[in-house]
């Protein structure tokens, strides 16, 4: 009998059954939350979709403990609304891929956001999902229920399996329940900006801000080509009112050497940081790349690719280069490697994704170790859908 094309487990027992059936039937399982990242990686036509949306709901939330336990299938919008009602926020800045693929934001599940291990603009100061996933429950590819980490903010008991869960992209286990750190939401934010800098000047300005005592939470630069000729370099600070004024004053001082410093109006600042979240400036339909490099090398990446027609912006003070590029994908990977980083193909036509892996292939020693780690949780390759080139 041919396997069903989608499964909707409603319990841990269902999940264990699904894993067992997959092992027996020899079919792979593609874990899915809100589907916002379905356009990443190769198509996996033979895989059975494992829909995790039944694992929803708030399991435990005590704001004063700074800990939230939530079903992995809960939508990001619901999680954010819950903590916002207590004047809190997730300790990491969740990145929602929906808008990149032309969908409404907020429908990604928290499990998917964590499994992708990708964070937004505040990553440079706040850390990523890996830094704030305190614990989880899951069912491994071996069909075993698994408890990792704990529900307290400080814990070093046993291996730090939550680090593996964040960024696992559904290749190790199906997470059903997540415990995440939450933090108070700063009441005030302010953005300072300089117009007209080129890539290298922007990197220097952002480095000066990051190295100052202003406690910068985010630093980004949108290139001139994406803003009708007027590049914008922006730096954000936050905190209680009196502190934000003092931090902004420090920025005024350290940025003055780099250009005329503007205080962005709140609506303009919100629009700018929204652009970094949705990547609206790069919504051209061209293949979209995410390049991680040491911040000082961001300019080198774009100077290599700009002449070939790339459009780009910087986040993370230059450590994250988002670019759209229709040319030879090898040029992107080579530019990232020369800069000491790596490049991920986030959006592109299926034919391109078939040819070009989503992530930089690891070096042989690391690749072998990664495979052994995957085998430790998924001995039969239940999660090897071929999406990430891991089908043997």
């Amino acid at each position, binding site marked *: 009998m041919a396997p069903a094309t989608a499964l909707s487990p409603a319990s841990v027992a269902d999940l264990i059954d699904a894993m067992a059936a997959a*092992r027996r039937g020899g079919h792979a399982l593609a874990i899915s939350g809100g589907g916002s990242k379905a356009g990443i990686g190769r198509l996996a036509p033979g895989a059975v979709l494992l829909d995790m949306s039944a694992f929803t709901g708030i399991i435990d939330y*005590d704001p*004063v*403990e700074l800990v939230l336990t939530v079903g992995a299938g809960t939508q990001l919008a619901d999680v954010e609304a819950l903590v916002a009602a207590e*004047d809190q926020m997730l300790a990491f800045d969740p990145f929602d891929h929906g808008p990149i693929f032309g969908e409404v934001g907020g429908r990604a599940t928290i499990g998917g956001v964590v499994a992708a*291990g990708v964070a937004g603009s505040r990553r440079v100061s706040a*850390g*990523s999902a*890996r830094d704030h996933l305190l614990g989880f429950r899951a069912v491994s590819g*071996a069909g*075993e*229920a*698994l*408890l990792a980490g*704990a529900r*307290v*903010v*400080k*814990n*070093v008991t*046993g*291996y*730090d*399996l939550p*680090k*593996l869960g964040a960024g*696992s992209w559904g290749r190790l286990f199906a997470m059903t329940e997540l415990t995440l750190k939450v*933090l*108070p*939401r700063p*009441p005030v934010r302010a953005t300072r900006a300089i117009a007209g800098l080129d890539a290298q000047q922007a990197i220097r300005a952002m*480095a000066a801000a990051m*190295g100052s*005592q202003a406690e910068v939470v985010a630093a980004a630069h949108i290139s001139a080509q994406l803003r009708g000729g007027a590049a914008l370099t922006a730096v954000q600070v936050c905190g*209680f009112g*009196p*502190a934000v004024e003092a931090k902004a004053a*420090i920025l005024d001082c350290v940025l003055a050497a780099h250009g005329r410093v503007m205080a962005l109006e709140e609506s303009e600042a919100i629009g700018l940081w929204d652009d970094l979240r949705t990547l609206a400036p790069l919504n051209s339909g061209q293949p979209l790349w995410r390049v*991680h*490099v*040491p*911040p*000082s090398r961001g300019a080198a990446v774009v100077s290599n690719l700009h002449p070939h027609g790339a459009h780009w912006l910087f986040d993370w003070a230059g*450590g994250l280069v988002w670019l759209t590029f229709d040319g030879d994908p090898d040029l992107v990977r080579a530019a990232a490697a020369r800069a*000491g980083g*790596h490049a*991920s193909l986030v959006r592109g036509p299926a034919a391109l994704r078939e040819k070009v892996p989503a992530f930089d292939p*690891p070096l042989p*020693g*690391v690749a072998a*170790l990664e495979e*052994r*780690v995957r*085998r*430790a*949780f998924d*001995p*039969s*390759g239940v999660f090897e859908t071929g999406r990430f080139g891991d089908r*043997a």
Partner: protein
Amino acid sequence: MSLVMPEPYAGVLARRSEIVRALRAIVPGEGVIDDPDALRAYESDGLTAYRQPPMVAVLPETTDQVAAILRWCHAQGVRVVPRGAGTSLSGGALPLVDAVLVGMARFNRMLDIDYADRLAVVQPGVTNLAVTRAVEDRGFYYAPDPSSQIACTIGGNVAENSGGVHCLKYGLTTNNVLGVEIVLMDGEIIRLGGRQLDSAGLDLLGVVVGSEGLLGIVTEVTVRILPKPEGARALLIGFPSVESGGQCVADVIAAGIIPAGMEMMDRLAIHAAEAFVEVGYPLDVEALLIVELDGVTAECDHLTGEVAAIARANGATTLRLSADEAERVAFWAGRKAAFPAVGRVSPDYYCMDGTIPRRRLPEVLERMRELSEQYGLGLANVFHAGDGNLHPLILYDANVPGELDRAEAFGADILRLCVAVGGVLTGEHGVGVEKRDLMPEMFSETDLRQQQGLKCAFDPKSLLNPGKVFPMLHRCAELGRMHVHRGATPFPDLPRF
């Protein structure tokens, strides 16, 4: 001591002189230590209740030497115990009678400091404090600050995922490490992470940090450095009960304030500390809270006012704000000396390290008082109050027959209590040998087997730091992982038992 360590390999013990010769071929000169008196220097770490000199110690200087040592030991089936400065409080560096101890002290160079990318590349034997010392003249520092920071090494910090008094705001080691070079037990040298944020692929860097020397030996570490905050001020607040101090902590966080540090001491710890360092701690209070606020000056001023108001609302009986840097340091001096101070009022003490959800603090304190009476042993309490990490210090006298055993039984009961209220066995000191046998309190057999599966992916012969973290290490082949891929075994017709 009732610690059961893995059965020594008799064949390895018999080959000691051959092993020493082989190591000398890899590390020439003084780098191989086999003299029994000299080996005593390595017989224990900060958990001094357990002592065992290693079979031989080797002090490599290069990554290639580490790789050659591990490759040779792997091929010969010889166990290896890595060691940094030996300040572990959980016995993570406790030698084994049949193991080679690999001391990383000679990896003591700062390799690169990059202010543009705000990172430092250091060898693992560099001390924690030395990183800050190297970058402070440019206004930077390395955030994790375990209290042993003068002596403990970055390599040891990576192994233990060390914290410190500022980790509520700035994170543990794992949140401040960008990359490592690591040698696996088979001698393979790999790099995980780098100078950028986040790597492609699984976050193996994240599992290496905190793996207590069971997955590999780290030979280079890239850490983030941060601009030193413009200012820091501390409040010293006395309360008539530990409970009111605990409520103050909860109210500070509920007000949206995350202090740089928030430490609490109980009456016994306060008195011991004041007798030791004489910094003017109030002696008529049951709990003392130190709250440190850092950041821009305006923020420090604003938040110290907010915290003071919250403290008064919770019935604080004394409240002092540090007027200058000297007074701030003085406030901390007593807290930082709390362990040795307690060591002056009791012949021996045993430091615990559980974390609990903060809301359960009153009942945990009450139960600890009962246990203290039941075991007939005194207890001083020092807490990282902001994150619920408790350091109860059990007072005992090792010269009184049976007291060490009673202290250990008392400690185990405290840790069981931490787990029972939803907490964990260790917040920052590591499992090591100390809490190894309590792991089943927190994890099921299946959970532990899955963690060991990860160990097997890195070290299939289980040669690296055996006897640590896991109560019973299954041989990797016994974990039931017959690696059946898509239902096809490599030799489907062979009988399997």
